């Protein structure tokens, strides 16, 4: 009885190692979910019907089933068809694919706000579809989508805790181990709770810095720069 942080603080190196892995997984998952999210969003509004259907089904499936089930499906399912799985990479891939579904919806609604006239103008300059997306549509769409995307990233960071269930020794996984060793679960998980808070605040801050650096002043200028 009684709250005592000493034995937990004695294992702080172990917690920090977990935090490191959590940050690594979070960065990997955020990057993957961002890239795949853009691709799915483009598929979602593509003129090719098969791509549209694929994207719709993808988004629907990933958004309406629990992440835990997706993770179990990938982690336990792939070895069954002969693909060996490794916890950390499986975790990153599952997080990335799952997060991509949400991001795709956010990016799609960003793309839909892009003025149709801009697209027509770029087309009249004979830009290819890839160039239109790269220089005209995405810079504008991402600026609009960036804040909700930031929330999605924060969410993804919190979701990384779930990969501890497939034996990844991330912050949550190591915290469980420490609590088993020290019999101080309350102290351990309280500290971990606050660490996660700090990490999410840091992620929000980074998201804001990126917005200020890249999106705050972009109007339609990237198009002109892209042509020069």
């Amino acid at each position: 009885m009684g709250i005592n942080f000493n034995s937990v603080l004695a294992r702080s190196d172990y917690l920090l190692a977990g935090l490191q892995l959590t940050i690594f997984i979070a960065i990997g998952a955020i990057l993957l979910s961002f890239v795949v999210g853009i691709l799915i969003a483009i598929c979602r509004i593509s003129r090719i019907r098969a791509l549209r259907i694929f994207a719709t089904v993808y988004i629907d499936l990933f958004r309406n089933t629990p992440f835990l089930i997706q993770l179990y499906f990938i982690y336990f399912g792939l070895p069954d068809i002969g693909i060996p799985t490794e916890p950390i990479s499986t975790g990153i891939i599952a997080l990335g694919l799952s997060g991509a579904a949400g991001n795709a919806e956010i990016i799609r609604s960003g793309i839909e706000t892009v003025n149709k006239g801009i697209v027509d103008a770029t087309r009249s300059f004979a830009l290819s579809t890839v160039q239109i997306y790269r220089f005209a549509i995405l810079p504008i769409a991402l600026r609009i989508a960036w804040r909700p995307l930031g929330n999605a990233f924060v969410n993804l960071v919190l979701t990384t805790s779930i990969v501890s269930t497939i034996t990844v020794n991330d912050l949550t996984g190591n915290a469980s181990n420490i609590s088993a060793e020290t019999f101080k679960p309350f102290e351990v998980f309280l500290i971990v709770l606050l660490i996660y808070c700090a990490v999410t605040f840091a992620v929000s801050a980074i998201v804001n810095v990126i917005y200020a650096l890249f999106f705050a002043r972009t109007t339609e200028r990237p198009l002109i720069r892209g042509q020069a």
Partner: protein
Amino acid sequence: MKIYQNTELTLADVFLILRGLQWTMFVWSTSMAGGIVLGFVLALLRHARIPVVAQLVTVFVEIFRNSPLLVQLFLVFYGLPLVSPFSPGPAEAAIFTMTINTAAFTVVNMVAALDAVPRGQWQASNSFGLSYMQTMRYVVLPQAIRTAIPPTMNLAISQLQTSSLISIIGVADLTRVGIQLYVRTLKPFLVWPIIGLIYFVIAKILSILAARIERRIRAKVTWFEDAA
């Protein structure tokens, strides 16, 4: 010698799944109901800007929104018995934690909805001689609640998925049943899609319901504005 005889899914497993579904729905509905009520009260406290109390609510909300539910569950289930006279069982810990988690998100939705009511209405009510309570009861809340319903429906859908995490602390919910069936049959490609599909169907039903309610609210609001 045959050890693994019982590797097929049988009709009896349907009852096992239904049993798990029952637990999922029970924990989810209880914690949604409790969380919405608690969040509503906390939002009113915060909106009233009562010194100390409003700040405490903000800190509470930020901590629970910015940390993983999994860690919160561990904190309550493993930590609470060692530092307090309460020792909740898995289901109690799950309901308690999810209620608080839901409340934290509801506060944000509700405060946003309260702030969305134009300032002018407070002034107008004031000039009609309505007290703070009367203004809240007859003018602001009817509008704010209507605004807060769509985000709350979204929250309910996402909390249904998040509730799969309670399986990790040992609640025999749908995901837990999935693990049991998987361990027994070792057929990940059969078990996880079935479990995932059940979550999917419930989420779909909920979102169709949400869309319908939203449409009705919008119809009502338009009527309201036309009459004015």
